[in-house]
């Protein structure tokens, strides 16, 4: 954003109009600063995925030239992509941040959580997440969730109050008026905060391109050993694939979302650059989650049900 004529936009008679990316950026920064001003122990959920990377970038801008006044929390499923974990650790190091890791594997090893028959670990993240929130007494938890992702998320507030069990009650949400966010909560309760609520997948990618934000390489087309399961290309690996009747092949693919390897599918793609990725998404006839997430396909209300239990 500059104040020169280059910033002037078409379709408006005012020289003071902002582009949609500038408007979204300004709104997200406002949300970060509100939380910094009103909460004691905020934390950013950081997975090394593109949405959390954009969140971190916005937080860095919101408080520059000072440091980001938040710690990071990653719920590690034990089936994360190595490239993403490497990115996560590098980002933490580069910006002098503090990272908490809640490990699903550790909960399984302790016998607290049980591996599901389908091998999907995504729903298992809820317990380590909510226990980490309780243990560290986090009172505001930033998530990269966007309302365009899923229809239950379309109902989510920017500031979303969770009870002491981290539960979301969609029928008892606070109306959100103007930009006056209400962060009041009782001890033990916390607020989930979604600064990217109003962004779409394409906005996120355009912003990444504009700001020249580095991403883990799995977002760009590369050759990888994958196998077909439930209509999706999954990365072969120690986590549990392929099974006997599934065969591995090498394909040119990329990831649209980054999550647990057991339920995050790759898409066939030759997009190796940001511009190519943006063109591909703009032309796609599938939503991000529809294309790549197995766990959302479990039922019509899968996301709502998980959110009610404390999922992000």
């Amino acid at each position, binding site marked *: 954003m500059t104040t020169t004529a280059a910033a002037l936009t078409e379709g408006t008679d005012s020289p*003071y109009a902002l582009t949609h990316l500038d408007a979204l950026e*300004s709104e997200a920064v406002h949300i970060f600063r509100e939380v910094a001003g009103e909460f004691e122990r905020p934390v950013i959920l950081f997975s090394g995925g593109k949405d959390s990377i954009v969140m971190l970038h916005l937080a860095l801008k919101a408080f520059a030239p000072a440091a980001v006044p938040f710690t990071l929390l990653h719920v590690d499923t034990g089936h994360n992509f190595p490239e993403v974990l490497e990115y996560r650790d590098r980002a933490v190091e580069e910006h002098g941040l503090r990272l908490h890791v809640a490990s699903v594997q550790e909960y399984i090893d302790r016998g607290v959580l049980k591996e599901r028959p389908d091998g999907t670990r995504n729903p298992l993240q809820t317990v380590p997440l909510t226990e980490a929130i309780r243990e560290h007494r986090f009172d505001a938890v930033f998530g990269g969730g966007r309302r365009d992702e899923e229809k239950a998320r379309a109902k989510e507030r920017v500031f979303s109050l969770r009870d002491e069990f981290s539960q979301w009650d969609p029928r008892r949400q606070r109306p959100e008026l103007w930009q006056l966010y209400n962060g009041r909560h009782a001890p033990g309760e916390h607020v989930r905060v979604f600064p990217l609520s109003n962004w779409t997948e394409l906005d996120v990618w355009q912003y990444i391109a504009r700001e020249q934000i580095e991403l883990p390489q799995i977002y760009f087309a590369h050759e990888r050993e994958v196998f077909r399961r439930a209509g999706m290309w999954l990365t072969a690996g120690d986590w549990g694939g392929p099974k006997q009747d599934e065969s591995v092949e090498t394909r040119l693919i990329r990831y649209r979302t980054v999550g647990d390897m057991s339920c995050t599918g790759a898409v066939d793609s030759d997009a190796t650059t940001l511009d190519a990725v943006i063109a591909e998404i703009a032309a796609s006839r599938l*939503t991000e989650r529809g294309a790549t997430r197995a766990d959302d396909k479990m039922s019509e209300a899968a996301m709502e049900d998980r959110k009610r239990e404390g999922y992000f």
Partner: protein
Amino acid sequence: MSTPVDNAVQFADLSATTLLRFATAGSVDDGKSTLVGRLLHDSKSVLTDQLEAVEAASAKRGQDAPDLALLTDGLRAEREQGITIDVAYRYFATPRRRFILADTPGHVQYTRNMVTGASTADLALVLVDARNGVVEQTRRHAAVAALLRVPHVVLAVNKMDLVGYEEKVFAAIAEEFTTYAGELGVPEITAIPISALAGDNVVEPSAHMDWYGGPTVLEHLETVPVSHDLTGCHARLPVQYVIRPQTAEHPDYRGYAGQIAAGTFRVGESVTVLPSGRTSKISGIDLLGESVNVAWTPQSVTLLLDDDVDISRGDLIVPSGDAPATTQDVEATVCHVADQPLAVGHRVLLKHGTRTVKAIVKDIPSRLTLDDLSLHPHPGQLAANDIGRVKIRTAEPLPLDSYADSRRTGAFILIDPADGTTLTAGMVGESFASPEPVKADVDYDGWDF
């Protein structure tokens, strides 16, 4: 995800688009879901897997055609009951503009839902059924849009196919609505004859109404100006956070971060900090890491001042010579949004800008009936969805603008200090309705709407 796909969309084309926030309002059978579905569908914002999910769910319910309302009804209870419970936000885009749609339900509790949706909207889209014309609920929608001072109002006269696409039907409704809304102070009204079901004048121009020379709904949404002329606005910066790195590189940096709520700020300008009244001069403006000479609403910025004045979160920075009066006695029009009532004597918290203060409800002089804009004097309390006038005493002085001058610094919310519930949406100053109750000599039996 939402982008027209038939034309190759390039990053360069999309990066310059502006954002329009708008809210829909319409009663149950006016065809609002169909219109929203049509906008999303015809702008190619519904993707294959979403449509397949809707088709599957519709078939499971024994419906022949995909029920586009299922695109927006996201909650289990909504799908079970076939109703919309709460405001949902939808996103779509054309090469010219990106849109955030606050899709507000037309059922019970609609006043607070529409207030919620309209509070951030640049435009309100009010639907009427061409067969019924302007009805009570249309007037309520117009009144809420006027109360919230939504800059643009569109009247979509729907179901034109059911009145033979008759120009005179449309013209009569448009004139009645324009007159009514104009009296309420709605600044700009655009009336469009449509059939959401048949697709007339929603995205594509109608082949059935060549007497209509105006834009389609989508064309209007794409071209309506988003930003106001800011030259006459009072500049306001509520301080959110003080940025003090205290590092070797920035030992003395002290910046006042916030989102500009109104107007413009320039380097060199003299400013006053409220409520203290101390003055200084802007020595620099950081726009998220970039140094600029001028910044305007709604940019998030950091102001640097010449002097080390005592400023903290909750303060308001304004141009010297253009400061609002500070007061502990707030008079406002409010919409009560919580289930528990608001009564005279209640102790509440009031959040205005970045400042939250203790407050007490001193008086509720009147309650407004949106149907006919009559005032019911001294109702004692306001129930959910009630709109009324209130007088509030705050524990500390607040720099308040009139909502008519600034939708941001003239707005506040009331919060229940016991459980944090958001109770009430408040708008400072005179509203379109007369400030004092007029009379109680009419027999009303339906105060609640």
